[in-house]
């Protein structure tokens, strides 16, 4: 039994005061009054001492009272019957007071202890609720359990679901763990049962191994060292409650992760399905043309007029080019759709990008319908030149395809606040309001575009490219008919221009 030194000193002080007072008034008051002072002293001392100590002390003091004050003084003998009664009553009252005070204190201590444990559970529960990653709170659990056990605790927590084998990489292990401990932890985890003293399973162990339970199974385990001969069931219940809190938090995190993964997978599946639909439709058409022309050349070559042969060959070249662009678009869309796509950003001049797009467009634009107009003094763009070229190629292609054969197509580049707007404008039939957002979806075309082909993924790629640059691609109807596809790209503070022209 341990006595707190400060409390012991206070108790001694109470007794010393009582005895000083008794000696001081000795002779002036009768024995019964002196006895009251002794009762007072013992009662006060019992406030600070454990019950057995204060009871023993009370007995000793009653004996000492008998020796000092009860006649005949200086002996333990008692000559008067009433003195015996007094001493007996004194002893009984002292013992009773000591016992009562002791019990009160034990109850108060226990209440404080329970409050502390409840507080610990609550704090830990809140800490778990506040985090998306319960593993980050594992050190907190370990500290709490180590504090309870007064010894270092070992934790094993699964990073994801329960692995097929006891794979060290699948779990986070906190604290020292030898092979036996690890085996015990995995066993408790897999069987979702506690092991160790008082559990009825492996009572010979020097520790409790507690599973971190969920509604189904467990997602971790803790090894809590314990005195094998005197296991404290209440303490184990509390430790188990802490472990279960962690188990449930792990379960919640696991469920959230699985849900997120399932959602992402479904999304990826959706994009894949759309791409597959686009490929199967858009790619088949030029392929059919190529196959038709090529097989005609192959099978009927001798019988065809030279002019017919030339036309078939030209068709194959054109359609193969179309197919190549489609393939580029489809692949680019898939690439931009993947998470963490890397752009090759560099300082680019809008004039150059438009210029090279124009040059490529001329191959498909023999009548020179496409014209470009750039505002002077445009800032450099921070962008991926290949992606932006692809965006322009698609928009120009689209404009050429969906407008009458002689109508002009305009590329207009201008600065607008902190952005550069690249607009490709046609004089086609325009897009009805209901379709204006849908044209950017994979595999969508204007409703009356039945026999024209090809923009299935084109505009979707363009929008994905604009957005990958932190910009946007919009469709605006034009005043006297036609559409304007406008790519808005945010500008960035340009780097300093080269300094003084160096000498020749």
């Amino acid at each position, binding site marked *: 039994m341990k006595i707190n030194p400060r409390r012991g000193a206070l108790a001694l002080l109470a007794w010393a005061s009582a005895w000083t007072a008794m000696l001081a008034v000795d002779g002036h008051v009768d024995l019964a009054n002196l006895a009251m002072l002794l009762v007072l002293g013992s009662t006060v001392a019992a406030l600070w001492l454990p019950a057995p100590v204060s009871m023993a002390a009370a007995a000793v003091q009653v004996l000492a009272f008998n020796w000092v004050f009860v006649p005949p003084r200086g002996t333990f003998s008692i000559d008067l019957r009433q003195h015996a009664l007094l001493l007996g009553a004194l002893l009984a009252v002292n013992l009773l007071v000591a016992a009562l005070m002791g019990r009160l204190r034990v109850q108060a201590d226990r209440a404080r202890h329970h409050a502390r444990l409840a507080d610990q559970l609550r704090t830990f529960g809140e800490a778990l609720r506040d985090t998306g990653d319960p593993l980050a709170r594992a050190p907190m659990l370990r500290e709490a359990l180590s504090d309870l056990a007064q010894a270092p605790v070992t934790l094993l927590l699964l990073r994801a679901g329960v692995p097929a084998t006891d794979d060290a990489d699948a779990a986070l292990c906190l604290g020292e763990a030898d092979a036996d401990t690890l085996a015990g932890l995995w066993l408790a985890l897999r069987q979702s049962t506690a092991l160790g003293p008082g559990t009825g399973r492996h009572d010979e162990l020097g520790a409790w191994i507690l599973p971190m339970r969920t509604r189904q199974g467990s997602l971790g385990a803790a090894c809590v060292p314990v005195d094998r001969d005197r296991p404290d069931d209440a303490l184990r219940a509390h430790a188990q409650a802490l472990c279960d809190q962690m188990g449930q938090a792990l379960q919640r995190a696991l469920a959230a992760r699985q849900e997120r993964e399932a959602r992402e997978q479904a999304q990826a599946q959706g994009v894949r399905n759309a791409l597959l639909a686009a490929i199967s439709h858009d790619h088949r058409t030029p392929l059919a043309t190529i196959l038709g022309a090529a097989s005609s050349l192959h099978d009927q070559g001798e019988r065809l007029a030279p002019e017919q042969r030339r036309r078939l060959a030209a068709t194959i070249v054109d359609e193969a080019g179309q197919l190549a662009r489609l393939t580029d678009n489809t692949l680019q869309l898939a690439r931009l759709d993947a998470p963490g796509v890397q752009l*090759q950003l*560099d*300082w680019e001049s809008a004039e*150059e*990008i438009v*210029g090279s797009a*124009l*040059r490529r467009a001329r191959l498909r634009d023999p009548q020179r319908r496409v014209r470009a107009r750039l505002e002077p003094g445009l800032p*450099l763009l921070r962008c991926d030149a290949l992606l932006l070229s692809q965006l322009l190629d698609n928009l120009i292609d689209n404009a050429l395809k969906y407008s009458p054969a002689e109508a002009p197509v305009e590329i207009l580049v201008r600065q607008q606040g902190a952005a550069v707007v690249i607009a490709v404008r046609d004089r086609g039939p325009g897009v009805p309001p209901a379709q204006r957002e849908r044209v950017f979806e994979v595999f969508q075309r204007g409703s009356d575009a039945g026999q024209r082909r090809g923009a299935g993924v084109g505009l979707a790629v363009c929008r994905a490219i604009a957005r990958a640059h932190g910009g946007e691609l919009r469709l605006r109807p034009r005043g006297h008919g036609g559409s304007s596809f406008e790519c808005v790209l945010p500008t960035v503070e340009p780097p300093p221009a080269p300094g003084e022209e*160096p000498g020749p």
Partner: protein
Amino acid sequence: MKLLLVEDDRELRRTLADAMAVEGYEVLTAASLSEGMALARHADVDLVVLDLGLPDGDGEALLDALRHRQGTPVLVISARQAEGQKIRLLDAGADDYLVKPFSVGELLARLRVALRHRGTSVHAAVTRYAQGGLEVDLEAHRVALHGEPVHLTPTEFRLLARLVRSAGRVVTHRQLLADVWGPEFTEHTHYLRLYMGQLRAKLEADPTEPQRLLTEPGVGYRLVDTD
């Protein structure tokens, strides 16, 4: 002229070999890196057309070997996925590149340009350029457009001179920056944008649709050299 074509796809190899043979070239073909290495070492070829993705290794290894031993021009043909590699190969000394799919006409045009430049690293470099009314004489430091002298600043002239020396071939941003401004400026792409803009303003009829100083988006520039 003896050409070596290293390409693993059988159909493409045969098609390209036939097309080159029709133009009068003698064509050796290799389907793998090791075969290509052996032929390049033992047969005295004038030019190599090199595919990057080969079954037994990367075309880059052959380029390295050729660069270390002889000045044989190398024309890289690659799939679009190998964008970064393409620039690296150009920087490492490849003469030109074509992205698959490409037309035979394009391939033959690039072949002619590369063959014309063959050995320029050994023999006297190109010092004159005359095309579409633009005349550049590097030694005399003279530039004329349709007979009229054009005044260029020293940096503009150095930039144009660098392109003239590789006329018809793509010169990467990195090469241009290193040769015109210095090796510490290889990341300053914005310098190029500025000076190319100025050059075009002086040399192109319509700078928004250049006919001489062409942009290869994401790679570099090419001074037109038609034959």
